[in-house]
């Protein structure tokens, strides 16, 4: 019975872990996207005179 309780907990814990790992992957992807957007933005509107770029 004890084994049973342990196994049950481990099933839930694994699912929680997978959800967390995915969230970490999402964070990583979003960070890359941000860097890319910044570099695009700099190319589109050079930081020296951002007002005149429009």
């Amino acid at each position: 019975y004890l084994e049973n309780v342990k196994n049950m907990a481990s099933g839930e814990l694994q699912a929680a872990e997978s959800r967390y790992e995915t969230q970490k992957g999402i964070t990583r992807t979003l960070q890359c996207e941000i860097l890319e957007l910044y570099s695009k933005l700099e190319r589109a509107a050079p930081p020296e005179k951002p007002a005149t770029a429009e």
Partner: protein
Amino acid sequence: MAEDPQRNFRSHYYEKVGFRGVEEKKSLEILLKDDPLDVEKLCTFAQRYPLPSMYRLLVWKVLLGILPPHYESHSTVATFRKEQYQDLLQALQVIRFVQDSTPQVWVYLRMYQLESGTLPRRPSHSLEPEDVVFIAIAEAMEEMVENDVDAYWLVKCFVNQFNNKYGDSVPHLPKSLEHYLNLEDSKLLIHLKTSLAMSKLPYDLWFMHCFAGCLPETSVQRVWDKIISGSCKILVFVALEILLTFKMKLMAMNKAENIAQFLQNVSVTHHNAALLCW
């Protein structure tokens, strides 16, 4: 299993008249009363019999580890699975990989790529061969499963399990097919070899797409029952069955390209009853 000829005759009879699986369904129901579920027994069952369609989704999810064996955990774990799905979807929308117009199987592909760290830098990036396989499996799964969250998890776990478990065997399946074809019908094998068709058979469709989009849905489900429960040999036997079923037509063709083309399109043109009855 006790071999009672009377009973076997009856089962056989049921099969013929369309009551196939009455007894199988009962014995599966007994297995499903176990709590926790005995995954090994469920595998053994699925190796022997096609799963009754009303229990297929549950059994697939348990065998693929999407749901744990304990019923008590099912709702908690299902919630986690759903959240994980939504997290992925939302992130993809924000980075504009997924829009309202994106076909559902593409959404699944992007989610899978994001999870496995293989998301390309741009959505327009061309598809890798493994993406093509994923899409084929996803298209078939989408037809079988109504709920998007379930469909995504099933595709993802199916593909992962397939690669982990059978990735090393897949390259050997054509050889294995040749071996069995030689035993069953050496004439046909010789014909396919002399016409140089043996190397051009639609192996990707058979052994990587696992017949997705090639056979009628009910047949694909039965093939996948076996794959999910632990054996990829079924792929060879179904391919063999296809070759034997169309022997006459194949024997009449001499060009490898024609043979390959014919077999590639078997699905669209022939829903041959023989393919449903193995």
